[in-house]
């Protein structure tokens, strides 16, 4: 290839066979597909945030404030469906994973580039179906994102179209996972051993297996909802001999592992960030790699801890409660290894590291409150209260989304070849971190006080904490706007970032920023491990 770097087109400019918009929506380049996913999921995140803000606004005072009960039911359903299926599940793997997994392996692309494109198209198809379900038929779905029977079989809202959308989104997620597993097995550069794969790749590997092995259960579950609604078979209908609790089992057999689809890639991002900014080799590489697989495995055995109050046998409750505690072990292995990596490191407090540290703090609160809802005794008290809502948002917003923001700030100079304003980024991080805790900590308190989830109305004694939480939602909104504005400004007006602004050691930092179409100008060489920083020279192009 052309040896002159100045003439090399980046993947943003190298259109390939098509031109204009078609060079994007028909691309098989993993980086362009990653960008398609990135912009799609962030747009849906914005929609989900707006609905969330509206819900918080409704809850600022008892009674009907801005909407009524039915609209509020639609709000929390649509907020959940959009955030879970359209944003969080594809978020890190399909955007940052697509962008960087092949480059970190020294490969040109994923194993199945066309299937990769198909998975984005399936995502868009699912998205369109879900949007159709909001605006057609007899109103937006009002079942909650869990589509629990028997209500989901009888509600007249547009559940049919929504579950078909979810089915197709599941297909899309499976194809991404299948692609990544095969890529890691087959596309690593010839001399890269399994123990030389960056840990982000390991986390995507574990995630891929959950996507492949758990998502089909979601497929059959939502398909059964569709069949029940159209044909009335009665598999979950007590009047016809069915058992609604079996629906809950099937649903959670997918949807509990799904939270690890959400959070394990974020753990991978954090694992990439921490050693770079501690200037120290990651502590316990193998333990972190294996703990991803351990989480994936143990996480598939705990689904019924969502059902302690469903009338399961006490034996089942105790077994699932015990298994739930086991998941805490590999999660803690990761947290302790991150902290050990920071210990005596030469810490540089750049924005990506701030997000990673926020991840550790918030995810720890999420994890510890998880033990409260995971142990059968305490769960009875806080089940279906705001405690669960608070716990969930600490793990998924505080975990996955902060991890994703960290990844965005970390890889931003590689994606765009430019650097954002770090001071503004730090300010935005501070506002987000404070706002986050003001928004969600009151939910834990409200839950302990007994405020049930999914209610548009409440007793006056809950109002104080609801007001605090709503104010928190505004602070979060300000933080998000500032963060995205700063990144947008970075794309437009940022300083050129150079190849390796963070002096990192993984392969993506050895190629141009942004990378050329085939990722590397010449065959990459594996001269160092992913976390060996000795001898990395300061990038001359960036000071």
């Amino acid at each position, binding site marked *: *290839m052309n040896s002159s770097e100045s003439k090399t087109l980046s993947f943003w400019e190298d259109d390939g066979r098509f031109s204009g918009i078609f060079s994007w929506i028909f691309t098989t380049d993993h980086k362009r597909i990653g960008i398609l996913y990135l912009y799609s999921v962030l747009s849906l995140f914005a929609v989900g945030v707006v609905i969330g803000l509206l819900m918080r606004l409704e809850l600022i005072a008892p009674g009907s404030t801005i909407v009524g009960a039915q609209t509020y039911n639609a709000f929390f359903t649509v907020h959940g469906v959009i955030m879970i299926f359209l944003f969080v599940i594809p978020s890190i793997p399909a955007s940052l994973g697509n962008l960087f997994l092949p480059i970190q392996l020294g490969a*040109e692309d994923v*194993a*199945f580039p066309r*299937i990769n494109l198909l998975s984005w198209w399936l995502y868009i198809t699912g998205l369109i179906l879900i949007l159709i379900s909001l605006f057609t038929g007899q109103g937006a779905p009002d079942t909650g994102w869990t589509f629990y029977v028997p209500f989901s079989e009888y509600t007249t809202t547009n559940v049919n179209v929504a579950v078909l959308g979810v089915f197709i989104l599941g297909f899309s997620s*499976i194809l991404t*996972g*299948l*692609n990544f*597993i*095969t890529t890691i*097995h*087959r*596309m690593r550069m010839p001399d890269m051993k399994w123990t030389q794969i960056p840990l982000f790749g390991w986390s995507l590997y574990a995630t891929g297996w959950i996507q*492949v*092995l*758990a*998502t*089909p*259960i979601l*497929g*059959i*579950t939502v*398909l*059964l909802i569709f*069949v029940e609604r159209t*044909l*009335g*078979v*009665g*598999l979950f209908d007590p009047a*016809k*001999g*069915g*058992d609604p609790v*079996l629906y809950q*089992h*099937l649903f959670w*057999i997918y949807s509990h592992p799904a939270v690890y689809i959400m959070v394990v890639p974020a753990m991978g991002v954090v694992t990439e960030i921490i050693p770079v900014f501690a200037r120290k080799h990651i502590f316990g590489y193998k333990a972190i790699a294996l703990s991803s697989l351990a989480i994936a495995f143990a996480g598939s055995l705990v689904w019924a801890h969502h059902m302690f109050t469903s009338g399961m046998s006490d034996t089942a409750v105790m077994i699932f409660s015990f298994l739930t505690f086991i998941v805490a072990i590999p999660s803690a292995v990761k947290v302790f290894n991150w902290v050990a990596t920071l210990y005596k490191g030469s810490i540089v407090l750049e924005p990506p590291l701030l997000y990673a540290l926020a991840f550790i703090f918030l995810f720890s609160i999420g994890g510890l409150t998880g033990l409260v809802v995971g142990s059968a005794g305490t769960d009875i008290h806080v089940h279906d209260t705001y405690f669960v809502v608070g716990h969930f948002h600490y793990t998924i917003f505080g975990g996955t989304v902060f991890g994703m923001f960290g990844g965005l700030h970390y890889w931003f100079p590689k994606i765009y070849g430019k650097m954002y304003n770090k001071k503004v980024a730090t300010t935005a991080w501070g506002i987000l971190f404070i706002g986050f805790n003001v928004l969600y900590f009151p939910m834990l308190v409200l839950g302990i006080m007994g405020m049930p989830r999914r209610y548009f109305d409440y007793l006056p004694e809950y109002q104080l904490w609801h007001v605090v939480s709503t104010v928190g939602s505004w602070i979060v909104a300000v933080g998000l706007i500032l963060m995205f504005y700063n990144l947008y400004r970075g794309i437009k007006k940022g300083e050129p970032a150079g190849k390796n602004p963070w002096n990192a050691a993984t392969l993506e930092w050895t190629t141009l920023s942004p990378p050329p179409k*085939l*990722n*590397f*100008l*010449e*065959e990459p060489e594996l001269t160092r491990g992913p976390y060996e920083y000795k001898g990395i020279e300061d990038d001359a192009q960036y000071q």
Partner: protein
Amino acid sequence: MTHNTNKDYTGAKIGMWLFLFTEIILFGGLFVLYSVYLHRYPDEFHLAGQELNVYFGTANTLVLLTSSFSMALSITALQKDNKKLCMILLTITMILACVFLVNKYFEWGAKIHHGIYPDSPALLERPKGEIIFFGLYYVMTGLHGLHVLIGALIIFVVLVLVAKNKVTSSDFVAVENTGLYWHLVDMVWIYLFPLFYLVV
């Protein structure tokens, strides 16, 4: 860096096997429902199972087993560069898939004619266990039938690719992966047949 145009045979097989895992688990959800309801309603399942026509089921089992055989032969034929034989065998596989579906159509048709179909008045008068048995019967054999239909379409596409020399003895992984899919469809039926027709 030059673009690597070599096809990764092993990679394609890994991808297919991963997809087959997802199919097994898709049906696995239904098998879980079956086992729970069999445990709950053993007597009703027994009575309802007596009403299914074992001859239809046996015939379809033989049809699918034979089609798996012809599918496997077609891969070997292509590997040995016998394009014509491969195409004949693929056609036979496709015809057998259609025979299975026609057979299924008549079997379902007879049941529906007797008023036994989901949510039918005649079915709702029966005991709950029998409603569930026939519900599972329609959902599980229906989903399987859909897979047979998709399989037949895929075999047709591969047949065209072989005819156009897009799939040849040096690059036969498309036929082999189609074969893997078809064997899975066969395998699922191998479990469905005894569960509905024989053991209950």
